[in-house]
Structure formats: C-alpha cells, structure tokens
C-alpha cells in the first residue's frame, strides 16, 4: 500500500467496487476476448444485480467492454457509445451461488471470430478477480502483465512457454494451468513481473500446440 492508494485512485463515482471495479472487469473481459466485440450478454449476480442501477454498474461494465478506463468521464454515456461502435449488449440477472463473490458478473462475449465466457468479481477498492474463462478455473487480477494460452494438453507445453519467457528475461510471478479433460484443451494463465512485448506474444503463438495466446497489459 502506498500513499496514492489512500489519496486515490482518480475514478468515476459513485463506488469503487460497483463502478470502478465494474469498469475494470469489463476491460479485462474485453482483453480476454482479444478481438473486436460484437455482442455481450451480461449476467449480474448478488449486490451487482440488486444495486447496479444506482451505482451505474451496468454503464461501467459496458464502458469497460469498450476499453474505457475507470476514470473516463464517458463512462456514463457508454450505452450510447456502444451503439455508435456497433456493439450490442443485453443484461440478465442470475441467482448468486454459494461459492460466488457477492459482486459477480458473467460475460458471454461474441467477437468477430470467436466466443468467450468470462466470470469475474469486484472484490473491493476497485480491485477485481476473473475466476473462470470458458469454464476453466483461473485467477486473474489484471494487476500484472498476463499471458493466457489455450493449448493442447500434452507434455512439455508449460516448459516451452516458461523457457521462452526466460529467454526474454521475463520473470514469472504466478502461473496456473487447468484443462477440460486429459489430452483435450488446456488453459494456462501466466502473470509476470515485467511487460510482455508484442514479439514475445507472437513467439508464444509460434510454439507448436498453442491454439491461442493473448497478452494483457496491467490495467
């Protein structure tokens, strides 16, 4: 914690968890999709479902999906902005499950060539956690440079990626692998201490067995 966590952040009100955090969640989800967003189905849970209107949670989520920062004053006009950019969206309310955080959201995102389901929560003070991507369990804060890969579940994949990062002198802070079934598709999340340049992201994509790689800069 530093002094700018106390005098700050600069943000759009009214709530760090329900507005700023919501905008961040939308932004992380947009990065995870990794391509032009066409349509978003957004399901709100718990306190998000109950108080979204008064907190502008819905506006903030859409703003994030459009790539706006939590301190962008266009947050409150995000629905209009989405229309101008040809991005469709609809909101649903879901039943909060026991294991879910009270400020949770599920995005079903349709991009120009792929679809993604991202579940996340706003955990206070504007900080967020993405807990699942396409049913794969993950733990992404968006605070570190992050690489997400979808790859074939076979021996050596983790080693190849970590070796490649080491070649470019990038230290791994956290790493997590999960898979749908043995020998199927696996998803890996790597959070690093330093930024991941475009050429490193491209090099990861070149690794045999990698189906998709997305690099996300810290938000």
């Amino acid at each position, binding site marked *: *914690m*530093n*002094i*700018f*966590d*106390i*005098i*700050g*952040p*600069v*943000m*759009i*009100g*009214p*709530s*760090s968890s329900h*507005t*700023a955090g919501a905008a961040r969640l939308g932004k992380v989800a947009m990065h995870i999709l990794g391509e032009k967003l066409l349509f978003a189905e957004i399901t*709100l849970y718990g*306190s998000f*479902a*109950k*108080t*979204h*209107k*008064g*907190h*502008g949670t*819905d*506006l903030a989520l859409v703003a994030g999906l459009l790539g706006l920062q939590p*301190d962008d*004053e266009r*947050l*409150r006009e995000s*629905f209009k902005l989405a229309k101008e950019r040809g991005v469709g969206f*609809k*909101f*649903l*309310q879901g039943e909060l499950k026991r294991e879910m955080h009270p400020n949770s959201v599920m995005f079903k995102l349709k991009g120009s060539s792929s679809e993604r389901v991202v579940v996340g929560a706003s955990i*206070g*003070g504007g900080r967020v956690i993405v807990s699942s991507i396409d049913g794969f369990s993950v733990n992404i804060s968006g605070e570190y440079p992050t690489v997400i890969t979808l790859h074939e579940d076979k021996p050596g994949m983790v080693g190849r990626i970590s070796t490649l990062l080491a070649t470019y002198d990038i230290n791994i802070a956290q790493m997590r692998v999960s898979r749908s079934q043995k020998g199927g598709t696996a998803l890996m999340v790597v959070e690093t201490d330093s930024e991941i340049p475009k050429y490193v992201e491209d090099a990861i994509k070149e690794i045999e067995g990698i189906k998709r790689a997305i690099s996300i800069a810290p938000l």
Partner: protein
Amino acid sequence: MYTTIQELIKTATREGRKISYVAKRLEAKELETTEEELTKSMRERFKVMKKSIETGLTQDLQSMSGLTGTEGKKFWKYIPNSITGKPVAEAIARAMAVGNVNASMGRIVAAPTAGASGILPAVILTVGELFKRSEGEMVDSLFTAGAIGKVIAIRASLSGAEGGCQAECGSAAAMAAGAAVELAGGSPHQVGDAVALALKSIMGLVCDPVAGLVEVPCIKRNGILASMAISVADLSLAGIRSVIPADEVIDAMKSVGEMLPNELKETALGGVATTPTAKEIEKNLKEVSPK
C-alpha cells in the same frame, strides 16, 4: 515504513519539519522514486479534486438514482445567510458538491474512498484559501493526510464494510483535520491531536446507506464531517490536547468496528437504511429492472 502517528510526529519534530515533508521522503524511498515525481502525481490529484468541487457547485447534477444532486450548489448559494458562516459553511458546501459529483458518475479522487471523497478536498481548499496558502502547500498537505490515512489503514481499516462509517468518513475527517492543522501552521503534535479529536468525535458511526447507494446519508455526512474536521483542527490549534493519543484512538476505532454488527456495515440492513421511507425508496428503485 511507518505504522504509527507517533513516529511521524517524533521524526518531524526532531527535524523541525512538517509531517508532509517526512511522509513524502518516506514514500519516495518506499516507491523508489523522487519526491518531485510524487509531488507531480499528487498535484494531478489535487487538480481533479478542485475540478470536482467546481463541477458540483456550478452544475445541476442528478444522481443515478435521482435521490440527490444539487445539495452542494444549493448550500453554496445559501452561505451569505448561514448561521455557521464562512469559512466552515464553504467547506460543508464543497464537501457535498464532491459527493454530488460522485453520485452522478463524475470524476473524483477517492480520499480515502469514493463515498468519503468530499471531506478532504473541501477542508484543504477552504483552510488553504483562508490562510492564503499556495497550491504547492495545499498539495503538500495531502501528503500529511495520506500518511494519516495510511496509518489508519494499517492499524484499523478505511472501509465502511469492515469498520462502519467511522472508518470511512471518520478517517477522511481525521485526515482532513490533520492536514488543516498543518496548513494553518500548527505543529506536528497538533496534527496528531486533531486526528485523535476527530476520530473520538465520530467513534461508532455506522454505515447505513439507503438502498445500498452512496447517497443517503453519505453526501450530507461528508458536508457535516468537513465542518467537524475544521472544528477539531481549531481545538487543537488552540492548544487543547487530546488526552488519548492518536494511535490509541485509532486502535479503539478498530475494536469498535469489530464490535459493530454486520447490519451496520454497508449492508443496508440497519440504521436509516431500514426505515419505512428507505424501504419505500428501495422498492421503487428495484422496480426498474436491468435493460
């Protein structure tokens, strides 16, 4: 890394400096940056604070729920007739103005949170103007406020959900009171006393937002606590000491926060949030389902 108000007071007193000077040096060391860089970042925040005050005092805002909007502007116009009088009335209006901006999805600086964001800018600007301080001095006083807030965050909490409103608006008032004393030319000891006096005055204040929104009673509470911050700064500047030192008061606030039931910690399950009128408001808001 500092964890007590006492060590900030001691260091500043020993060196014959302000607490802001000591805090800035310690922060620069911890963040591995220069004091100039820190000042630059803080000045940006101060500008956003000033802008939010101006917006709230001059524009006809409406909150997302429609419950609030122009309290700051309305009170600003009323000041010539006020019982309170300048400068305290100005601080009240300014604090509510920022609360109005926050609730209408405008840009603010969380200080220490969004819900309590009006108190510190209102007090610093008002006291700074009164003593004809430069922008640089007002920006510096934010380091004193930030250091106080950091100690409270470490020893207790700044979140209404954890410690009730005493931890959120109460901490903001303590930070503002300390900064006000420094701006007025008070000693580091007097800064500490103002912190203690502020927190003692709101000990036990509950967080009871109507319909779970940062509006009622939050916006007016920002205004009133800005006036309290200035009052305790005055007490301390007059040489009236707090019998209980600031760090002990902070620890007491933490324990009171732990004793408070969850119903009174931002859950909207107690306090004014469960009054018949609040229930009616909540029902009306709910009827608008998501698009």
